[in-house]
Every structure is written in structure tokens, then in C-alpha cells.
């Protein structure tokens, strides 16, 4: 929680303290008119009274005043809000290793299917773009709010071939991102960066600009041989986790098509919510005033203020 006018809090605290002092003075004066009883210990024993009632009323009275005083300071509270707009780039690895069939039917086809689920899970106002990368990165779909068009663009993802230039893909995403707003990058890859700019530096750059990178590692633990090459397709989980950590995102691992689908669907839903500071002054004032009104009504019903 934050306050737009923190100094008003100090003034409010003084007001509350002054009211508490005034209350105690008045209560002390009123106590002179209190009834006198022979033995209050016997009275307490005999009635087993509900002493919490006056205490609760006093507490509610104080809470109401504090809320009213705090409302003057312009309180803002962090609430998870549905994203109405934003920009998301999904970067899909199309290096040669994505031909591997350890993830059915191939890593690339599974990635495309999962990307489709991700796009479909995004709120309608969010723009989505698609970048593919192998030895170099390219834009398959610039940012668009037309999700159907983005899904169709997945058909244009090139066949797997070449090296893995993760840093280039992140750089391309950074170049095309707007300067502000809710922005993020989803990186789906099975490999180790072996071309282009340093992805760790790019991840740090994106993080510095409040653009988290969510990395999804695709492939089975034992990997697979890249068809036609004899090379083994491996995954550098440490690096992928590092890109996510450096940018404020998160890493997840998918060992089959279903896990990949779930991971990206979850990301789609997760990125549909953002935590925003919301003006709470009206709510504070309403709650404080409501509590005070309730206290007055209850106190009148009970005969007098505690």
C-alpha cells in the first residue's frame, strides 16, 4: 500500500491522537456520573458480563476514525487487475534441433500448438507478435490485436534449421516493443544459445525496461538426436532460468506436448493479470464512515457510548 500524500498521514495521526485524548477526557468526566455498586468484583462474578462489547465498539470507533484520516492521504492499494491491454512477443526456436521427435510430433510442431493455446488465452485487448529464431531472428507477425491473424501466422513459422540465436530474438522483441505499458516476452526454446548477441545481456536489458522474459524449455531429459545431423539436442536449463531471473520472469520446463501446452496456457492466463496500484481513498472513506455510522447506531441501541 502507498499514499499519494504521506504528509497527510502525519496530520491524520495527530488528529486521531487528539480525538483519543479528547475521548479519554470526556470518558473520565462521564465516569464521575457512573453508578456506584457495593462490590464490583461480585458484580462481575455474578453477571459474567460480555466486556468485549464495549471494547469492540471502542475499537470500531477508532478504526473508523483511522480509516477516515487515512483516506485524506490518498491511499493506493495493489490489486490484481485483469489486463485490458499490453504487448506480448512469443519467440519460437526454429533451430535444427526443433525437428527432434522426443516431443510429439516434433518439438517445433508442439511449440506451435502450444503457442496457439497461449494466444487464445490472452485477453482480447492484448497485442501479440511472433518472432522465430535459428541462426538469426525474424518477425513472423508484428504486434497485432487480431489474435486470429496471429494464430494464422503460426503457419508461417519456418521449418527447423540452423543455429540458436536466442539473444537476437530477445533483441528483436525489445526493438519492436512499445516504450511503456504491460509488456512481456515468452521464449520457447530447446537449445543452447550458439549464435548472435548475448541473451543474458538482452534479458538484463529487458528486465531494466520492465519487460519480463518467461522462458519455456522444451525437450525430454535425455534429449534426442537431431535428425540428419547425428548431433544431440540438449537444453541449458541454467541459462534459461538465468534469462528469466534477470528480467523478472519465470522459467518452466516442458517434456512433452501436453506439458508445453499447459505451460503456455498457464502463462497466457497468468499474463492476463497484473498487479496495479488502485486509488482506495473513496473505499477508505466509505469504510470509515460506514463503521462510524454503525457504531453510532449500535451505541444508541445499547444506551450510550462505551
Amino acid at each position, binding site marked *: 500500500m502507498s499514499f499519494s500524500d504521506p504528509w497527510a498521514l502525519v496530520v491524520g495521526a495527530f488528529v486521531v491522537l487528539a480525538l483519543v485524548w479528547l475521548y479519554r477526557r470526556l470518558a473520565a468526566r462521564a*465516569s464521575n456520573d457512573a*453508578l*456506584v455498586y457495593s462490590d464490583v468484583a461480585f458484580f462481575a462474578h455474578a*453477571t459474567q*458480563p*460480555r466486556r468485549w462489547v464495549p471494547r469492540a465498539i471502542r475499537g470500531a470507533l477508532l478504526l473508523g476514525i483511522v480509516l477516515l484520516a487515512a483516506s485524506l492521504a490518498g491511499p493506493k492499494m495493489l490489486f490484481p487487475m485483469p489486463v485490458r491491454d499490453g504487448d506480448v512477443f512469443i519467440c519460437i526456436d526454429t533451430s535444427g534441433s526443433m525437428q527432434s521427435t522426443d516431443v510429439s510430433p516434433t518439438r517445433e510442431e508442439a511449440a506451435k500448438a502450444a503457442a496457439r493455446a497461449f494466444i487464445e488465452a490472452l485477453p482480447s485487448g492484448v497485442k501479440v507478435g511472433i518472432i522465430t529464431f535459428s541462426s538469426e531472428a525474424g518477425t513472423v507477425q508484428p504486434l497485432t490485436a487480431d489474435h486470429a491473424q496471429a494464430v494464422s501466422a503460426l503457419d508461417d513459422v519456418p521449418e527447423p534449421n540452423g543455429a540458436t540465436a536466442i539473444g537476437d530474438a530477445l533483441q528483436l522483441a525489445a526493438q519492436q516493443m512499445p516504450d511503456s505499458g504491460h509488456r512481456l516476452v515468452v521464449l520457447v526454446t530447446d537449445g543452447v544459445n550458439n549464435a548472435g548477441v548475448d541473451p543474458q545481456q538482452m534479458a538484463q536489458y529487458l528486465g531494466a525496461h520492465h519487460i519480463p522474459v518467461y522462458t519455456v524449455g522444451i525437450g525430454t531429459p535425455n534429449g534426442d538426436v537431431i535428425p540428419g545431423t547425428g548431433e544431440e539436442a540438449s537444453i541449458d536449463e541454467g541459462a534459461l532460468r538465468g534469462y528469466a531471473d534477470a528480467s523478472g520472469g519465470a522459467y518452466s520446463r516442458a517434456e512433452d506436448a501436453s506439458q508445453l501446452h499447459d505451460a503456455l496456457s498457464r502463462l497466457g492466463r497468468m499474463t492476463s493479470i497484473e498487479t496495479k496500484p488502485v486509488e482506495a481513498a473513496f473505499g477508505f472513506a466509505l469504510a470509515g464512515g460506514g463503521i462510524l455510522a454503525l457504531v453510532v447506531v449500535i451505541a444508541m441501541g445499547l444506551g450510550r457510548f462505551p
Partner: protein
Amino acid sequence: MPLAVAFDLRKALETARAALTRGSALLAIGDWFDLDDGYDRILSELGTRFDCTALIARDPWYDGLPLRGIVRLHGAEGGTIDTYIGRGERERYRAAVRAREATLVTRFAHAGWRCDVLDEQNGEASLLRAFGIAHAARAV
């Protein structure tokens, strides 16, 4: 701050025991709030040596607690209580006051005292009732 100096019942009874001669008559009137098991011995001693009569000042709220809602009570000998009084509290109070009075009567009887409740409008009749002269008390 106490509204009155606390009354020391034990000291008062001990003073009576020391000052009175055997066979003297002792009339004690009070609300007896302090009287608990710890007084049984001295009551019995007094009951044996003297002709003791106790009148119990009845709780003015014996017939029912007239309080409701949030109330503040000061103890005559100190203490304050801020509390809420509802139907449950009133019922418990009524039962407790009656039980206390019955216990006092029993305690005095066991100690060899005669005892009754003080009628503040007619103290003489109260005394006669304590002596078991009910018909005389009615006449008074």
C-alpha cells in the same frame, strides 16, 4: 479512586470478639460481600460466646438488575467495570444475588447466629423476624 475507605470485616469481628464479654449481645448489619469460607471460624467463635444476630442489607437490585446496554459501575470501595448488560447478564445476576443471600443465611445459621434480611423501611420488624417472632414483626 475509591469512593469510601475499604471496610475491614475481619478486623471488625476480631474487635468485637476482644471487646465484648461472654454472653453479650452482638447485632451486626451489613451487606456481607466479604463474607466467605474464611470467616466460618471466627463467626462460630462469636456465635458460641455471644448472642449474635446478623441482618443482611438486601441488594437493592435483588428483584432484577435495572441496567441494560453499556454501563460503567464504580465500586464503593474501589474498582470500575465497563461492560455490556443484556438479558443473560440480568438473569445470571438475579440468580447469583439470591444464591449469595441464601448462602449467607446458611453460613450464619451454621455459626450459631440468628439472621434475617434487613428491611430498610422497617428495621425493627427485621430484627423481630430474626428472633423468630414473626407475628410480632407483622404487627410492627
